[in-house]
């Protein structure tokens, strides 16, 4: 319990229109594990759906204590989208045991929390829960897709002037959560640490492309044509790594992984609206043979010129390996002149 004078930061974690996968990803945190990370950051969990003993009436009491000002709430985390459907009623998620739409609980608690954090792309802007025609009415806390809005509105600020902090990803990387929360708990997060979508720049200051294990194939436009081939997946297989924010290839997932090393393209799950790309996820849309989505900040003419130049210069090793399921032609050591 957070008594008076405690300098621990209290955390309440709620889940709504999502899959719970961000919490499950968080449980994969290691060195440190999630419990140790929170302890080290001085974060005390008031309640978390997967980690707390309290259930039913005991949870309603905790929430009531916060709303009545009997208990301080420093960080409110939401995982999963805010469910406004059908037709703005919020009935697609009435919080169990209360008969009241979850969105109303979230709204009320947001006004009590010192900071509000959207954990994962659903809570940030709707995410996969908003796919299709979004009959669910899934929105984020302060965004709907790429547009400011959502439950609280784009102008919403906490008592320190920070917006809702959006930790993107489907799912989040465990360290994205523990590091962001630790910075918040330490009082060192400022507006300058956030990008235009209120995502921590520590996560989105780089592109998924940085550190891609298929970099040489990209450089020579040596492209995979089908899944389970080891060439670059940008030209044919829908990879958005050159456009999507994230340090996914510089910060290993589950020990050593990333989507690319798993053999599949980046689907830009850190970007608002990724759930409806307008084309099959594993297919690159093209106009006149040129991919529609160009690398971030790259002028089209340059890309076309460089691509045709590098294609012409592609070594046989890369050209043939690109459409193979493994390296067939190995790099050769250059003979030294005597």
């Amino acid at each position, binding site marked *: 319990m957070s008594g008076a004078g405690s300098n621990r930061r209290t955390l309440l974690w709620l*889940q709504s*229109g*999502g*899959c*719970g*996968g*961000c*919490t*499950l990803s968080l*449980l*994969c*945190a*290691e060195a440190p*594990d*999630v*419990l*140790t990370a929170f302890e080290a950051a001085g974060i005390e969990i008031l309640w978390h*759906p*997967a*980690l*707390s*003993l*309290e*259930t*039913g009436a005991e*949870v309603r009491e905790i929430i009531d204590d916060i709303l009545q000002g009997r208990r301080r709430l420093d960080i409110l985390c939401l995982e999963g989208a805010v*469910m406004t459907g*059908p*037709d703005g*009623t919020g009935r*697609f*998620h009435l*919080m*169990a*045991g209360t008969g009241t739409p*979850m969105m109303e609980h979230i709204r009320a608690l947001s006004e009590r929390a010192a900071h509000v954090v959207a954990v994962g792309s659903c809570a940030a802007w709707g995410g*996969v829960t908003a*796919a*299709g025609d979004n009959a*669910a009415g899934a929105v984020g806390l302060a965004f709907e897709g790429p547009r400011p809005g959502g439950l609280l509105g784009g102008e919403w600020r906490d008592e320190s002037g920070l917006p809702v902090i959006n930790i993107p990803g*489907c*799912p989040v990387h465990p360290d994205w959560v523990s590091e962001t929360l630790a910075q918040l708990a330490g009082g060192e997060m400022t507006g300058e640490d956030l990008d235009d979508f209120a995502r921590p720049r520590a996560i989105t200051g780089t592109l998924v492309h940085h550190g891609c294990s298929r970099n040489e194939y990209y450089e020579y436009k040596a492209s995979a044509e089908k*899944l*389970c081939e080891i060439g670059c997946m940008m030209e044919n297989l829908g990879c958005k790594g050159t456009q999507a924010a994230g340090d996914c290839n510089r910060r*290993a*997932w589950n020990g*050593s*992984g*990333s*989507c690319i*090393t*798993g*053999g*599949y*393209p980046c689907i830009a799950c850190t970007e608002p609206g990724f*759930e409806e790309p307008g084309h099959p*996820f*594993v297919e690159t849309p093209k106009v006149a043979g040129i991919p529609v989505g160009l690398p971030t900040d790259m002028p089209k003419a340059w890309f076309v010129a460089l691509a045709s130049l590098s294609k012409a210069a592609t070594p046989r090793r890369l050209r043939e390996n690109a459409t193979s*399921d*493994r390296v067939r032609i190995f790099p050769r050591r250059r003979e030294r002149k005597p």
Partner: protein
Amino acid sequence: MSRLVVGPFNRVEGDLEVRLDISQGQVQRAEVVSPLYRGFENMLRGKDVRDALVIAPRICGICSVSQSVAAAQAIAELQGLVPARNGRLVSDIVHAVENLADHLTHFYLFFMPDFTREAHAGRAWFEPLSERFSPRGGSAPRDMLGPRAEFMHILGTLAGKWPHTLTLQPGGVARVAAANEIRHLLGVLAGFRRFVARHLLGGPPEEFAALESAAALLEWAGARPRADLSLFLRASRDLGLHRVGRGNDRYLSFGAYPQDEGHLFPRGVFNGAGGGALDPGRITEDVASAWDLDSAPARHPYDGRTRPDGEMRAGYTWCKAPRLDGMPAEVGALARQLVAGHPLIVDLAREGGNVEARIVARMVEVALLLAAMERWLKEIAPRAPFIAHGETPQRGRGAGLCEAARGALGHWLRVEEGRIANFQIIAPTTWNFSPRDSAGTPGPLEQALEGLPVGRDERTPVMVQHVVRSYDPCMVCTVH
């Protein structure tokens, strides 16, 4: 008669409400409410078939790979595609890692904490179990999280990440597993085996999996009093959990981990009298108690529809009621091991399903899967292909039936004009936590809750919690 509404019911992977009608200190009637509707089935309509492999896993963060396996199988059947053998082996391994990790997560984080409740204070085992399993500083979650995360490195290597991989494809997997990686992963497995042997079971997994009777199990636990499973059994026998939480004693399994012939854990049904074959054609979903506008009382999932009633007029949950031959069925590790005829589990459920049998069945699977995964890793032929490619027809259909940690998961896919025309999903907890059907027959949990004791001052009755969580529910899958 008084009514008690328990919610938000946590440690159930999602949101859950349980309504109890109580008189004379007992539950007379229970209604199980799944309060969240997201609409994945309708979301998938009109999409490219391959998109299901991106979207379906995101139904669930804890059964994500199971959703991938079901979707990939449905598409493979649609395409008439036989997966590459290596691909199937890697897919089995990836799936087993998820299921095994889920068993661990359930035991350590979701189920055991309830034994540290004040309601149990004074029991002889209360102190040791609280020291071990209390969410407020207990030693077990910390002991478990590290080895679990390291175990998940197998998915980092073979599937890129967890949850929500796209490695699993209809014809196999999207990356090869090299010989050196296989050796590396065998080492990771060895490390995890040590955790299971030392902390969870207190002895070699093979010996544990070979136990054949309840008496042998109690003898095993008595000889290893510090093992986490032994701690549970001590509490379980004291509280009588081997006699509590009986459902309707009809079980089904879709079969888990396809092999060259059949499944590692077979497909079939089991009732008190014995086992039999499962005919998936006899599965229906009934919407009598669901907030759903479909006029037909029950449909086979190939013809299923999902029409949520935003006014929430008739019914009490978003969950439909799956039925086999018009009757409810329990799914999960207990069902799988009864269908498989595991002697220990058959013995534990001799007087009917119960909380203890559900827990021990998971532990048996942990032990069996460790050995199976080592075998599968060695069976991979690194020089052979890992994937086969297929074509999506203009019209057709396919079903993907697999087993998530918590039971049978099915995807039924219909394609017209090359796009998804219908996609219906029945998840494990849809079976277990189903509401009443049009005949008024309650779902398995509703049945299991009847007759449970409720103390006069209990607002969150502790026996109800033990029984609910013994199913290892996944509420986000339930309605999807």
